[in-house]
């Protein structure tokens, strides 16, 4: 009976450790919060992977005592804390003040491992003195539900270390490999891990038929530095545990080196992830620096003095290829703040009774009529799927509206000139709470202090830019992002990828049609990035569309596009208006035709991203269509952007069903001109 209970407990513990945590996980009661000194790598790591998936583990930095209050706001959480003999007096004092009791003092890391993993099937042993190997071992232990044993030296491993455990497998990481002779009897199998790749292989074997959908990349050197020792790599094992993902460590912060190293590692190990999770700031994992394409083409230097665009790692867009992976970057000023962000993500306590409206704040400076027109169409799209929205435009965007928005929504979309939403004019932070997801569609919005302050106060994901962007391209991105979230039901990483690929396709379309300013759109495609876990899903609860949206269907070697009859309510701002059907795309292409009020109409486009096993190109249904195809080979997805010339299909009435034949990538489309425009379906 006792044994059965032990097994049951072990299974439950393993399930807690390895089960993926959906971002929208909700629980009725706040869970107890564990506080651990952030500067104690061994203790932090053990608690993060041993308990972090089950309840919040906050790394505590005595310089930011308020972080605990910010995290526990609205919660009535119970606290506990753990320290070691070497923990400083000041830290102990602050922890006692917060928890109301003395912390547990951990004298023996082995004993702690036995508490955290009462009955593991496997254990991983490594040294406390080798940080990269500690991360590798912890990531593997977290992803497989194995126990983690941290020892000061190989000689410290003894039968006592595993006493009470019935281990099938004991993994010895390279720093303790010399303990292999004495480890022989400690488990049924003892495996010495000489190279980090062996952990990846073992994880793949452990996961069996369910290959990892994500990989985690970090730089252990991020603990160095004087001004920015973010130490975010400390959080990488928790992300590996959450996603059951393998870990790649780089000691080179250059983007090309990271991509080369990680790609070779994925290929060696047969990894085909959908998600790439970067754990590190711009110093640890640098983005590509790409010359500003507008400037390169002889255009003006961007406002704000930027001559380069920081392009996220694994984008491919700077090579004019579609972004393949859904990429997100876990960023904070330090590991303590990042631990709070991840704890919020994993253990969010949110009522289900009342879903808060999305808030859109657009064109506060009243200078972007074209962008505002697209913003208004985005709001109509949200309403079409019954997502509650509060939208503020122009003079409605007051400091009070911004403050109200920060506190009252879970998804905030800012469109317009960059502005610090959280900072008061004379310094100081104007808000206690911030939305879970924030889209900052403006120039250089990732460069400002705001993203870090938003993260510090509760935001889990930010979609923003690293360059100056033009309003119509920026608003087109936001429109495509929302499309992917509410109609495609995608996570944030995929939605950002799709929206960037839409801008890339739009760039190519404009260039093919000899638009002079295609490089402005290209700059926007390069500049957007996601800070946060790419698997996060904003809780929008989109319902069945009120008005039928555009539909794409892959059928017998053809992509069939059905354009419905009824458009969304018209959107207008300044001299522009748009009346697209649901799921049509906009992009700053303006027609010469005008309405009764002599406003200029925005051209509606059609865009889809579909799984497609073989590299393919979509052909135009007729000569009245311009089509751009982007094939992403790693995730095997085909993105298609189609632009109709309705004047050449007057009978179609801007609706109908149109077939886009697929041919192998590089193949030739049949001469559609011979067949003429099709009749509307």
């Amino acid at each position, binding site marked *: 009976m006792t044994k059965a209970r032990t097994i049951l407990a072990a299974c439950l513990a393993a399930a807690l450790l390895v089960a993926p945590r959906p971002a929208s996980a909700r629980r009725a009661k706040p869970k107890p919060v564990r506080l651990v000194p952030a500067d104690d790598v061994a203790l932090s790591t053990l608690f993060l992977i041993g308990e972090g998936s089950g309840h919040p583990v906050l790394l505590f930095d005595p310089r930011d005592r308020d972080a605990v209050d910010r995290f526990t706001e609205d919660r009535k959480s119970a606290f506990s804390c753990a320290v070691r003999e070497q923990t400083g007096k000041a830290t102990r004092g602050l922890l006692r003040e917060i928890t109301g009791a003395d912390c547990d003092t951990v004298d023996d890391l082995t004993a702690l491992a036995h508490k955290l993993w009462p009955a593991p099937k496997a254990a991983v042993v490594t040294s406390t003195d080798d940080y990269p190997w500690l991360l590798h071992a912890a990531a593997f232990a977290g992803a497989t539900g194995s126990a983690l044993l941290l020892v000061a030296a190989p000689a410290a491993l003894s039968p006592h270390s595993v006493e009470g455990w019935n281990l099938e497998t004991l993994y010895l990481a390279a720093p303790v490999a010399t303990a292999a002779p004495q480890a022989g009897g400690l488990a049924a199998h003892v495996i010495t891990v000489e190279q980090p790749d062996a952990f990846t292989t073992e994880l793949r074997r452990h996961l069996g038929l369910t290959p990892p959908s994500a990989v985690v990349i970090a730089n252990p050197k991020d603990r160095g530095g004087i*001004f920015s020792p973010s130490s975010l790599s400390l959080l990488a094992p928790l992300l590996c545990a959450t996603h059951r993902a393998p870990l790649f460590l780089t000691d080179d912060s250059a983007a090309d080196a990271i991509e080369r190293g990680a790609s070779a590692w994925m290929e060696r190990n047969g990894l085909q992830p959908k998600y790439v999770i970067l754990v590190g700031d711009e110093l640890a994992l640098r983005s590509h620096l790409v010359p500003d394409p507008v400037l390169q083409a002889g255009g003006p230097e961007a406002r704000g*003095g930027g001559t380069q665009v920081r392009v996220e790692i694994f984008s491919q867009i700077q090579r004019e290829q579609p972004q393949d992976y859904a990429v997100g970057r876990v960023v904070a000023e330090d590991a303590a703040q990042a631990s709070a962000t991840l704890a919020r993500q994993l253990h969010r306590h949110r009522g289900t009774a009342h879903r808060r409206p999305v808030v859109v704040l657009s064109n506060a400076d009243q200078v972007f009529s074209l962008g505002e027109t697209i913003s208004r169409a985005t709001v109509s799209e949200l309403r079409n799927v019954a997502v509650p929205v509060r939208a503020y435009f122009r003079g409605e965007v007051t400091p009070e509206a911004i403050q109200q928005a920060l506190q009252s929504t879970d998804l905030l979309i800012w469109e317009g000139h960059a502005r610090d939403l959280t900072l008061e004019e004379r310094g100081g932070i104007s808000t206690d709470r911030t939305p879970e997801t924030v889209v900052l569609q403006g120039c250089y919005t990732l460069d400002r202090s705001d993203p870090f302050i938003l993260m510090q106060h509760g935001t889990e994901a930010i979609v923003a830019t690293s360059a100056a962007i033009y309003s119509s391209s920026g608003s087109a991105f936001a429109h495509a992002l929302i499309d992917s979230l509410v109609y495609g039901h995608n996570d944030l990483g995929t939605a950002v990828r799709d929206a960037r690929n839409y801008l890339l396709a739009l760039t190519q379309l404009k260039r093919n049609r000899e638009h002079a300013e295609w490089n402005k759109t290209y700059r926007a495609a390069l500049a957007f990035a996601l800070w946060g876990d790419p698997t996060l899903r904003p809780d929008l609860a989109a319902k069945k569309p009120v008005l039928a949206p555009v539909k794409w269907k892959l059928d017998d070697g053809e992509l069939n596009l059905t354009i419905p009859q009824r458009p969304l309510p018209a959107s207008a701002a300044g001299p522009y208006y748009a009346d697209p059907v649901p799921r049509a795309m906009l992009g700053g292409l303006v027609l010469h035709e005008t309405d009764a009020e002599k406003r200029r109409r925005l051209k509606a486009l059609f865009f889809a991203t579909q799984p497609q096993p073989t590299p393919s190109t979509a052909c135009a249904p007729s000569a009245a269509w311009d089509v751009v195809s982007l094939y992403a080979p790693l995730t095997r997805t085909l993105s298609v952007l189609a632009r109709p010339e309705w004047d050449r299909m007057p009978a179609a009435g801007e609706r109908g069903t149109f077939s886009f034949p697929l041919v192998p990538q590089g193949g030739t489309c049949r001469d559609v001109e011979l067949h003429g425009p099709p009749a509307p379906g």
Partner: protein
Amino acid sequence: MCRRSRAVSIGCLIAAGLPLLAAPTLAAAAKVQRWEVSFAVRISGANGGPISVRLALPVSTDTQRVTGLDMQTRGLTPRLVTDAANPHLLLRGKLKGSRRISVSYEVASQRERDAVPRIEPIQSPTANLLAYLTPSPIFQSRSILVRDFLETYAAPKLGGTEPHLMRAILEATREQIVHRSDGKSLVLDVIRSRRAQRIGLERTFTTFLRCARIPARMVEGIDVKHTTKHKRVFWTEVWAQNRWWPVSASRGLVGKLPATYVALTRDGEPILSVEGAEKATYVVETRHLDDAPARTAAPP
């Protein structure tokens, strides 16, 4: 005696005990320069409604003493705001069209006498210093660009046995950012382009210091010897040993600023602002007084 008989004089009020300009005594040993400073302010575009004009006044410090405030406000009601950090004059009333007003005072100033001590980061700042460590829209001290710059250019200068953080940041700023009259003025624009006007250089330097946890504030003032109409100058003040010390990234000065620099505002507060009218502009005129009799601060 008030110099202009029809002017509203606050000099009398000051002498009567208002603390604003009641200055500490300047050190007798150091050379003191005395100047008369006159602001000619033009308010325009008022629509007949109430207006409010705010003009920054110098604060008296260890190195500058201000006396004899005098003004012609021409129908606007003056109020002296004796905020210790940001003293200013508020002029209120109703106005239609344009109006000129003038404000003048005497400044006695001398160079900083003491050498700037070692400037260290503050790990546990007191409440009154927090404002000078936190970011603001002007001082984007939590930007990734700021930390990237410091890590890339200042950190390598800290390898010695006694690294001096403030000087390393000052050197990195001056080496990497070029002063250009057509340069940028906003911090992040300066870091991206590496070209800055003097105001941009000081803002950026102040921001770098805040990021490094050194309390810092930017000062805007006038150089009474300048021949330009605004005579604007900028520098930074850093906190150490319970007082502020002047340092200028745009001039390359540590401590000894010219005695002709008069501090007017801090942390981006404008010297002149107006509400209720389209705009307010000003011209500053100065006159060396060392050969002239001192303006009295006492009532007649």
